[in-house]
């Protein structure tokens, strides 16, 4: 009887160790995934990506064109940060600025195409911006 009790206790210990081991492994994987997602979709990375992308699109475009840019990931972050969605992308002269946080500086990049450009938030779809080009 005594031996049986000992054996039961022993088995229980092994099971607990295994569960702790699995939980720690899972926690490790979850933390790693969270780190990866936070790095790849962080505000500074997206600001740089969209500022450069829009500047290059304007360089490749001609006046009277309209450029549609899908920005769902960036707009989600801007909404979370209580940023005015009409000010996420601004174009001043030949400089594109993407700003996803009200307290941040944003990221600016210039384009060499001498055209008038205006960035507008798509209020219908609410996940897009469109840039209208006009001759100067």
């Amino acid at each position, binding site marked *: 009887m005594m031996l049986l009790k000992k054996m039961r206790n022993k088995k229980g210990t092994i099971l607990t160790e295994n569960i702790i081991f699995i939980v720690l492994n899972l926690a490790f994987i979850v933390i790693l995934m969270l780190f990866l997602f936070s790095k790849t979709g962080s505000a500074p990375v997206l600001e740089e990506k969209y500022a450069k992308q829009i500047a290059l699109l304007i360089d490749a475009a001609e006046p009277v064109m309209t450029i549609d840019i899908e920005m769902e990931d960036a707009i989600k972050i801007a909404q979370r940060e209580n940023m005015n969605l009409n000010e996420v992308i601004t174009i001043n002269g030949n400089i594109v600025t993407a700003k996803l946080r009200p307290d941040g500086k944003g990221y600016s990049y*210039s384009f060499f195409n001498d055209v008038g450009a205006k960035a507008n938030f798509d209020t219908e779809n609410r996940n897009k911006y469109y840039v209208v080009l006009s001759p100067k």
Partner: protein
Amino acid sequence: MSIQKNKKGAEKILSVYWFAILLIVAGAIVYLVSSFYGKPYDVREMEARLLTDKIANCLSAGGNIKENWQGLNADNFLEECRLVFTVEDSYGWDDDQYYAEIKISDFDSGQSLNEVNAGNPNLKLDCAVDDKNFPLCLERSMYSIDKAGKQYKISIFAAVRKTEKNVQ
């Protein structure tokens, strides 16, 4: 009994090693991801390519050279080709991050007929160095004809610096 005890000890040592391996793997992933996403996207090659394309479209349309190409000079080149070389006010940049140069020559004799440049000419000197911390340079040439059927070779050279925002 003693065998069982040893087995348990070995399992514990194994799990310690297992966590050590996990930590090493995690450290490597964190380092690689941080170094990859910590670096800026280098778009200068694309920018230089677009700049040469834009100049080429300005000088020649449908294979025919621009009518007033003889009148192109350093003063009117940017305006004629609808280019603007002003840049954002950061890292002490002083609108000196671009350079463009065109050379129009006779296709048969190779004699230079017109040479025009705009932007910061110092960037061309740095092009000899093949390093990402120096300006990115691109040279392309094309063939064109005028209304009389005379043939021309147009060489376009473009350099984009913007190192601070594209390289780390």
